[in-house]
Structures are given as C-alpha cells and as structure tokens.
C-alpha cells in the first residue's frame, strides 16, 4: 500500500512539474484533482473542527443553546443560493464585517501600532538603568539607530498629506530605500523557500520514488 502511495504521489508531482514544458492534459488533470481534493479537505476539516467541535458538542454536552444564534446566522448565509430572499444573506455578512472591524480596531492598535512603536524606541547606549553608559555593543547601537530611523522615515514615505519636498522629501527618500531593502530581503526569502520546496520534491522523486539518493 505504501508503494502504491509513493507511485501516486510521484505521478502527481511529475504531472504538476510537466507544466514547465507547456500546458497539457496531465497537468490539467492534476490541477483539477487538486482543486477538488483541497476543497473537500477544508470542508471536512472545518466541519469536524467548527461544526462538530465548536457547535454540536457544546450544544449537546454543555447545553450552550445560544450558539444556535450563530448557526442561524450561518444558515442565513446559504440563502444567497435562493435569489428572491438572497438579501437576507447580508445579515450574517454584516455580523462578520462588524465583528472583524471591532476585533481589528483593538488588536491592530495594540499589537501592530503600540507594541511596534515601543520596540522601535530602544535605548541607544545602555539597556538597563545602572549599567555603564556604553555597555551596549556598537553593533546593537547602530542597529537600534537604523531601526528607529528606518521606521520613522518609512512612515514619512507613507504620509501623502504633505508634498515630498525639501527635508520632508529627503526623509521620504531614505524611507523608500529602507522599504526597498525590506522588499529585497522578502524577495530573497521567498526565493529560498520556493527553492527548498523544489529540493523537497526532487528529494522525493530521486530518493523515495526512484531510490537513487540514499
């Protein structure tokens, strides 16, 4: 059975890679199977995790009947499939939009603004009160200056209510350079992650399937 599984996985791996030659029936077959299988996978996972675990078990074991309100809103979502009363599906949608907005206002402000600002404004020389003033290494001093200045100038670049001219324009220029370094680093990381996935698949083909790598 294990051998059959390995052959099946190899068939699908090569089918996807065959797209490098050109769009072909083998690739399309694999693509169609992937769409169906992945939709089914998430459907099943969400069913057991949320409908069974979060809803059904809590109603039957803990008698949390108020969860029926959530389920009713969920059922209303399906009314979109019946055009004459499809507008009712806006109610659960509004609930989701409102809940997302309410949660994000607090969470984003706390974690993505306050915490980030706090972590950016680090002491340049000595991290602890009472330590010698120059106890920090030049490496971390320069690093802290670059982080603080880079974050500030990056934000200046995103401020479009004032024309980017003069000193303000100069800061915006440094800001875009900082952001370009970030994009370059992210790009480098993306390339590396995709390469490691490719190496993983090649390792599977030449190792697990063909047995050429031991």
């Amino acid at each position, binding site marked *: 059975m294990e051998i059959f599984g390995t052959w099946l996985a*190899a068939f699908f791996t090569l089918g996807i890679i065959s797209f490098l030659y050109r769009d072909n029936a083998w690739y*399309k077959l694999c693509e169609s199977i992937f769409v*169906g299988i992945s939709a089914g996978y998430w459907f099943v996972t969400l069913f057991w995790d*949320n409908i069974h675990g979060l*809803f059904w078990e809590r109603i039957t074991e803990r008698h949390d009947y108020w969860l029926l309100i959530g389920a009713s809103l969920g059922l209303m979502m399906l009314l979109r499939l019946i055009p004459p009363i499809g507008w009712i599906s806006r109610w659960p949608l509004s609930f*989701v939009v409102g809940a997302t907005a309410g949660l994000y206002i607090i969470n984003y402000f706390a974690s993505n603004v306050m915490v980030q600002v706090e972590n950016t404004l680090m002491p340049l020389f000595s991290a602890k009160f009472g330590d010698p003033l120059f106890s920090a290494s030049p490496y971390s001093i320069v690093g802290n200056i670059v982080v603080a200045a880079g974050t500030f100038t990056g934000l200046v670049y995103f401020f479009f209510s004032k024309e980017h001219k003069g000193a303000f324009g100069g800061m915006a220029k440094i800001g875009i350079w900082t*952001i370009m370094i970030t994009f370059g680093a992210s790009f480098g990381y993306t390339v590396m992650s995709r390469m490691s996935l490719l190496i993983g698949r090649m390792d599977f083909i030449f190792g697990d399937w063909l047995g050429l790598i031991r």
Partner: protein
Amino acid sequence: MKRKIPVIITSLVGTVLILSVFFPPAERMGEDFSIFFDIIAVFAFFLGGGNLVRIHGNKIYKKARDWGFSAVTLAGFFLMLAAGLFKIANPGGIAADVTAQGSLFQMLYDWIFNPLGASMYALLAFYVASASYRAFRAKNKEATILLIAAFIILLGRTPLGVYATAWIPEQFSLMQIPNLAIWIMTAPNLAGQRAIMIGIALGVISMSLRLILGVERTYLGTDNE
C-alpha cells in the same frame, strides 16, 4: 430593511466588541461573538463548496469545453468529503479522529493533497527565477538597493556565501556575507517591516471605524443583487 438592518448589525457588533475590552462583564460577549464568527465562516465555506458543485455541474451538464476535468474535480471533492465525513477505513471507527493514521482521509492527504500542494508551490521556484531575471536590473537607485539586499540574503543562506567571505578577519566579521544577511534582516529589514506594519494597522483602524460608523457600505453590494 435590506440595507438599514445590515448597517445596524455591523455597528452594534463592532461597538460591543470594542466595549467588551473595557468592561470585564462584557468580555464573555466578545468570546461568544468570536465563536459565532467561526460558525458563520464554516457556512460561508459550505456556500463556496455549493458554488463549486454548481459551476462544475453546469459545465458537465452542458458538455462545455474540458467538461471532463470538471468531472474529475467533482469526483475528487466528493471522494474527500465521503472519506472525511464518514471516516472511511478509519482504524478507530466513526468515533476516532478524522486524521487517524491508516484512514482513507489521511491517505488521500498524504498521497494526493500534500504532494500536489508542495509541487504547485515548488513550481513557483522557476517562475520566481524568471521574474528575478527581469526584476534584477539596476535601472535606478531603488532597484539597485533591492537587488543588493536580495543578493546578500540569497548568498548569506548558502554555503557559497560562507566560503566567499570566510577570509575576512574576525574584527570585521560583520562584513562576512552570512553576518551581513543577519544584520540586514534584524535592522533595515525590520525597520521597513515595521513602517509597513504600522501603516497597514492605521489603515485597518480607520477602515474599521468607517464600517462601524456606517460610512463605508460597499460590502453590502447593490440593491440589484
């Protein structure tokens, strides 16, 4: 009725969730709403599944171009559904975990879903390589900075990067490519990430306020829908 009630629901739910942070008795309400949110999300996914069946079913019914692939998609979808919902071949029976080793659902995951997903993303390596060829041209100062940063990060994570700059003395170790890559990640990259993160957060906060105050209503669509 069609537009007013949704706007009221959005404002009410959003306001309650904000207030629940400041008033401990209302904290439970915030948790409850989060569970509602998860349950509704599942139904939204059911809607997506229904749409998948409808669209591909229509293609098969009308014998449209490439309808055979639609049949394959639906076959895969229903096979995974049956394997997962009825826990086919699950060694522990219907009461066991759906992902138990040896179950058909887990086999389909290991033999089909996982290799297909990994290969799809691995395929992107080739497209990223061809995109780099086009993008990595030092046309101006900004593009040059991007190019240098990406090059150092790429080289810093490979053995070549280690060997190429191993001769640099210890007191200038920051100039060694792997160390330089780490410094780029922890200083200028972090600064740029933070600027983007704070910018996005401020945008999200202002958009959330617009939604809660009922100024932003585009998510309701048009009355024709």
